[in-house]
């Protein structure tokens, strides 16, 4: 393959050419209630070419027929030539990397029969169903893949990787009369078959939570001190802040650049945020991004002050900064765009108890059903919550929806505990039609001195 790619590059007439080829073997199993919905194995093969010429824009071509590679190199070149630009696209320098990276497959999923994967998921699904009568429905899914990946560019980079991934998720629905509640569990790892055993307790806990929520009151809407658990804090920092730190959001827009000026204060000195594509063993971790740039730990907020952003080679050159290894594509069907990897709120000091000790009335918001941001506005639904009363965790509450303005909310983070953890979830991040991109989020417990919590939604 490497020779084929090198030959195709040699025939390219463009000033810059890069080629990615991927061959992905995947399998998927899903249950709905006691019923097996599907158990399938698939193979996905394709390539991507991107070409750039002086005074021109990007020409890109993606294809499933690898025989077409030479033709597609030519087409990408022609498409680039068809896009005339007054202001040229420049790429920041990256030393061309040559690497053969066969990630630890940790039990190659390709060697495990589909029936064993079904048995594993059946056990986890069964753990949710075993919680009993109130659990009226479950959904459970298993997905694994191994992707063989090649990347070459005309500057001499040549990378060959074997990348594993395994994702499990479960949803338990509990019902009593007209009240329906859900409990979620999700595990996503850049590992293999051996890494996903012994998870039954986590699935059972999700189902138990769904049942417990049936009796929980809705949180009373209003403004409270809010503690985010590490899972929700991670989702928050990814959604509400991380996307703004992607340089493609600002690089073409002077006003946006002003909003995200390095040196701007975003929070109190307790707040540290970063993105680390090189963190060991996480789902968002890879040695190189999809432009062949090595990944790294990039500080974004240090002691409350904006100090960095995430770059592709193009955005880095444009802003006169250094590439950070954040140009990523979900597959050969897409061009690399600026994305997060493993995004985190840095560790603080003290314990969870220290954070709640002086709160007479507050909300402890845990885990996330989902979240969405629209630039400076965000909305997150916690999977569940607890009231905090007189410095103690009190009753379970539901319908905990946090909404607010990013800048105000970041600035109101006044305490960060020292109990950091990564949250290795399934799912992934969506942007520009590319979903799901494997990412990880991490955080310790975080306190927001005042936030709006919605609840009491009419049913």
């Amino acid at each position, binding site marked *: 393959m490497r020779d084929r790619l090198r030959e195709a590059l040699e025939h390219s007439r463009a000033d810059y050419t890069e080629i990615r080829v991927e*061959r992905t073997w*995947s399998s998927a199993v899903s249950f*709905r*209630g006691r*019923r*097996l*919905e*599907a158990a*399938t*194995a*698939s*193979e*996905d*093969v*394709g390539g991507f070419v991107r070409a750039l010429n002086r005074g021109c824009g990007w*020409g*890109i*071509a*993606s*294809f*499933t*027929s*690898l025989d*077409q590679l030479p033709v597609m190199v030519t087409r990408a070149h022609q*498409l680039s030539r*068809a*896009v005339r*630009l007054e*202001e040229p*696209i420049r790429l920041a320098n990256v030393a061309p990397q040559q690497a053969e990276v066969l990630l630890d497959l940790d039990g190659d999923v390709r060697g495990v029969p*589909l*029936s064993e994967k079904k048995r594993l998921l059946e056990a986890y699904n069964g753990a949710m169903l075993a919680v009993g009568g109130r659990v009226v*429905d479950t959904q459970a899914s298993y997905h694994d893949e191994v992707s063989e990946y090649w990347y070459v560019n005309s500057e001499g980079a040549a990378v060959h990787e074997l990348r594993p991934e395994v994702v499990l998720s479960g949803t338990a629905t509990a019902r009593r009369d007209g009240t*329906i509640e859900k409990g979620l569990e999700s595990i996503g790892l850049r590992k293999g078959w051996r890494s996903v055993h012994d998870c039954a307790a986590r699935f059972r806990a999700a189902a138990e939570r769904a049942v417990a929520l049936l009796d929980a009151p809705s949180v009373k*809407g209003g403004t409270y001190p809010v503690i985010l658990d590490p899972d929700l804090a991670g989702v928050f920092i990814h959604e509400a802040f991380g996307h703004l730190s992607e340089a493609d959001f600002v690089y*073409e*827009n002077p*006003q*946006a650049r*002003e*909003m995200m000026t390095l040196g701007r204060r975003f929070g109190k000195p307790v707040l540290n945020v970063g993105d680390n594509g090189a963190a060991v063993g996480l789902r968002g971790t890879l040695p190189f991004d999809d432009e062949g740039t090595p990944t790294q730990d990039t500080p974004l907020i240090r002691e409350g002050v904006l100090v960095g952003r995430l770059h592709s080679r193009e955005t880095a050159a444009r802003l006169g900064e250094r590439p950070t290894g954040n140009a990523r594509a979900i597959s050969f*069907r897409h*061009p690399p765009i600026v994305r997060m990897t493993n995004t985190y709120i840095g560790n603080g000091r003290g314990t969870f108890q220290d954070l709640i000790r002086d709160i007479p009335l507050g909300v402890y918001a845990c885990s996330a*059903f*989902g*979240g*969405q*941001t*629209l*630039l*400076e*506005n965000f*909305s997150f*639904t916690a999977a569940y919550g607890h009231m905090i009363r007189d410095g103690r965790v009190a009753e379970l509450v539901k319908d905990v*929806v946090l*909404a607010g303005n990013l800048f105000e909310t970041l600035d109101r983070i006044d305490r960060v505990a020292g109990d950091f953890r990564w949250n290795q979830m399934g799912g992934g991040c969506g942007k520009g039609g590319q979903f799901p991109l494997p990412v990880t989020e991490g955080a310790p417990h975080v306190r927001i001195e005042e936030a709006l919590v*919605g609840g009491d*939604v*009419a*049913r």
Partner: protein
Amino acid sequence: MSERVLEGLLDAVHRRAEGGDALWRREERTSLAFEAGRLKTAGVTEEAGMNLRVVQGGRVGVAGTTAADARPEDLLARALASAELGETLAVAFPGKVPLPHIATHVDHVANATLDDLTRMGRALVQQLSRDGCQVNISIEREVSETRVLNTAGAAASYQATAIAVTAGLVRFAGDDVLMVYDQSVGADLPNEADLNALVTSIQARLEFALRIATPPEGALPVIFTPGGLTAILLPLEMSLSGKAVVQGTSKLAGNVGEQIFDPRLSLTDDPLVPGRASSRPCDDEGVPSRTLPLIERGIVRGFVYDLETAARAGTASTGHGRRGVFGKPHIDYSNLVLGTRDGEAGGGRGGASAFAGGLLDGIADGLVVDDLIGVGQGNVIGGAFSHPVALAYRVQHGEITGRVKDAAVAGNVYGLLKRIGGLGNDGRWWGSRWAPSLLLEGVSVARR
């Protein structure tokens, strides 16, 4: 991957399994991206793949591949392995029946050159440019070919074209970020009127948004625009899916023939609308397309089914099976029509008539909701929604007085749709959905 592989594959299925069906699809996409008013990227995508389903021992299995070098026997072997674990289900594959005639392929869309598409984009950039705003435009043209074959004799094949033009303005003022966008989607190229309507729609909404208004509070009349309606229709779409019926989660399963909604509410799925990108002679399982009333004048009429869900429900497929190369076919709508398509001839493709469809008159204090944050999250099928606004306007004494930030709307769709305040005269396509603006009374509006 050649389409002829499909015949060979079906032969193998005949020999080695009790039955089956297969889909082969080839897509060629051309896309242009204008960033900040400049054309920056031009791209092509060529993709072909095959999805196979087999029945063996009464059990159903599936497999898919995009590999050009895939051998039919390997794909079949994988499908058979899947069937060994699959559920027992009597899938009624459709036989050889005539398909309705619907034009899905427009030659001049397929033949449009990169230059043609670039010119369209540049003209839009020019019309939309204004100080302090960034113009982003994407144009995507797709030409596809679909073939569906099964062992019961069905053999369908059609070509289709689609073009999507999305345009948006982004404006930053301090920490206030405003995004206004609109789109025009169809099987045919947008004409000048369509493009003008797209521009007018974006400009009008931007103009109204420049002033900031204080959000109102309380149970108020709220107009949901054709683009802002998603949160209202999503619970119905989920409950009207045969899958929700089979799983016992549909809120409407027991209500067929009953007056559940305001008599002005009608919802139809129509795969036979001329000129739409989602129109088709048959679904991805070879079931002939037909117009399907789901709610008629407030009365629940029926649900959408694919082959497998229909088999489990003991009914017939309504022709709503959608499948990709990977995984099993699933239920999906084609063109979802709210109300009737009156006025479509008047440029309803992507256009703008009077903002908010003439529903503003008579509203003393309320909102127009054009976009919400977080739609699709939470317990959607139950009908309860609660979302911060992404783009919304305050209405006072029948006039729009500015854009509302930091407000949220909440309510329950099933309650609110029992009494509709009014349907606008601005019916239009929003992606594959036709809808006018919808006025609902007593929507909870909260300030934050």
